[in-house]
């Protein structure tokens, strides 16, 4: 007798935004690793720039979803500003992410293409290692917060009980890092292909490291998803309905097929196979992790979409 009300106000745009925000945030942390732990400035800069661009595209999607994009500035300057709103907090995080990210990228010593190089080299902090490191840490924190925030944004809401769980931000962070890692893996592969033969082994090695990390992150993700789904099969009933939608209902092809199988299980197996054959002394190409990376990214996007679309809103059954 009763039609479930499923969240439908936030759709693809917000899903893309949540996904890109997470991926960019995660990617920034990995960039920091390559810069300041591995001293591979080239990979670090390109990954960091990619991460920044990804987040900025994400923000554009967020703005496209607004009814009045031209009034976005009100988030910061409204006379009735609400500093407790997750949108305000998120916008601040995004702003600091972009700021610190830009400072970080421009501080790293790197051979920029000619014209850009000239400008950047004029910046007082260019090449300053401690500044780079500090900004890298700040950008990474902001990146982490960006990823975390995408989960908190809907996790704080009580309107859809399926979202109101610590598992959601954790899942989004895990997925953010996973997609960030594979993002860097793709950047790495692109650089690797163009790099002179002598340097290729380095990228090969990175590929394995990143693949390994991703395999770990995927197993964490699978664990969270399993717990998340399993616990919600015990109610509340709205969340049960969400679980039903995801596992056997209309969203099952997307979730069970797109996210769990294609986006997580298969990449995990591919990455595991890569690690396994490497441990057997082989020198496998990066092909398997690359395929895995593409699948992980698609899976990550679908994950955001299905989580948004499985938000069964609070049910109001009158007491009988």
């Amino acid at each position, binding site marked *: 007798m009763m039609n479930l009300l499923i969240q439908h106000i936030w759709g693809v745009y917000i899903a893309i935004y949540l996904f890109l925000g997470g991926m960019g945030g995660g990617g920034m942390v990995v960039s920091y690793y390559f810069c300041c732990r591995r001293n591979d400035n080239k990979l670090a800069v390109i990954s960091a720039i990619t991460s920044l661009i990804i987040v900025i595209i994400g923000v554009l999607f967020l703005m496209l*979803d607004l*009814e009045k*994009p031209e009034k976005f500035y*009100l988030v910061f300057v409204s*006379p*009735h*500003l609400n500093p407790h709103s*997750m949108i305000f907090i998120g916008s601040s995080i995004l702003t600091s992410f972009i700021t610190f990210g830009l400072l970080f990228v421009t501080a790293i010593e790197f051979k920029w293409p000619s014209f850009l190089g000239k400008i950047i080299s004029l910046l007082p902090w260019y090449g300053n290692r401690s500044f780079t490191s500090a900004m890298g840490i700040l950008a990474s924190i902001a990146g982490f917060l960006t990823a975390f925030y995408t989960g908190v944004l809907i996790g704080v*809401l009580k*309107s859809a009980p399926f979202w109101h769980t610590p598992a959601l931000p954790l899942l989004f962070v895990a997925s953010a890092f996973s997609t960030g890692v594979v993002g860097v893996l793709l950047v790495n592969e692109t650089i690797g292909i163009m790099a002179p033969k002598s340097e290729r082994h380095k990228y090969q090695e990175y590929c394995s490291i990143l693949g390994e990390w991703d395999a770990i992150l995927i197993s964490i993700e699978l664990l969270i998803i399993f717990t998340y789904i399993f616990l919600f099969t015990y109610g509340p009933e709205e969340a049960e309905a969400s679980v039903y939608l995801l596992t056997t209902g209309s969203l099952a092809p997307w979730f069970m097929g797109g996210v769990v199988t294609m986006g997580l299980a298969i990449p995990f197996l591919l990455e595991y196979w890569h690690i396994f054959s490497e441990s057997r002394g082989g020198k496998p190409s990066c092909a398997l992790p690359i395929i895995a990376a593409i699948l992980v990214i698609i899976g990550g996007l679908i994950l955001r979409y299905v989580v948004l679309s499985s938000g069964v809103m609070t049910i109001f059954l009158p007491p009988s």
Partner: protein
Amino acid sequence: MTKYGMVIDLGSCLGCGACIAACDFENQTPWEEGKRRTHVPEFIFGEYPNVERLFVPRLCMHCEDPPCVAVCPTGASYKNEDGVVLVRYDMCIGCKYCVVACPYNARYVDERKHAIDKCTFCYNNRVSQGREPACVESCVGGARIFGDLEDPNSEVYKLIHSGEAVPLRADLGTHPKVRYIFRRKKREGD
């Protein structure tokens, strides 16, 4: 201090939809697109012949702790001095966070205003001139009762303080100012 609220007596709701149409015309909602400020969902429980059919009018609950106001970044959503939850349309950027955050599904996007809209208790257009909200005035069964929750002489005050009128999903902790009277039906054999 005034604190406006409403009590809906489900024992008097005829399910006729007068409130919906009254609201739509009064407030010029985008009803052609199915976007309305009040709805009257119907519930049928039980197995023949022990059946219960119930109409539960829904509108903005004008929560004392409104989640929509809590999530609004620009302060476009606010609770006014009389406890009515309203939207400053010019401040609203249309992020729709409030729509998603409202557990009572009381908000919608008004594409003509490029802003979020919702029930206002007819605050500016009626209540401030001493008239009842359109839905209350038209309610054929007299199921909707509107008044000041702070005024001990008001009908709503009495119904709420007698414990007869209760919130829908009190567990959500938003302290709705719209309350319901669920009267269990006397059935044969009871």
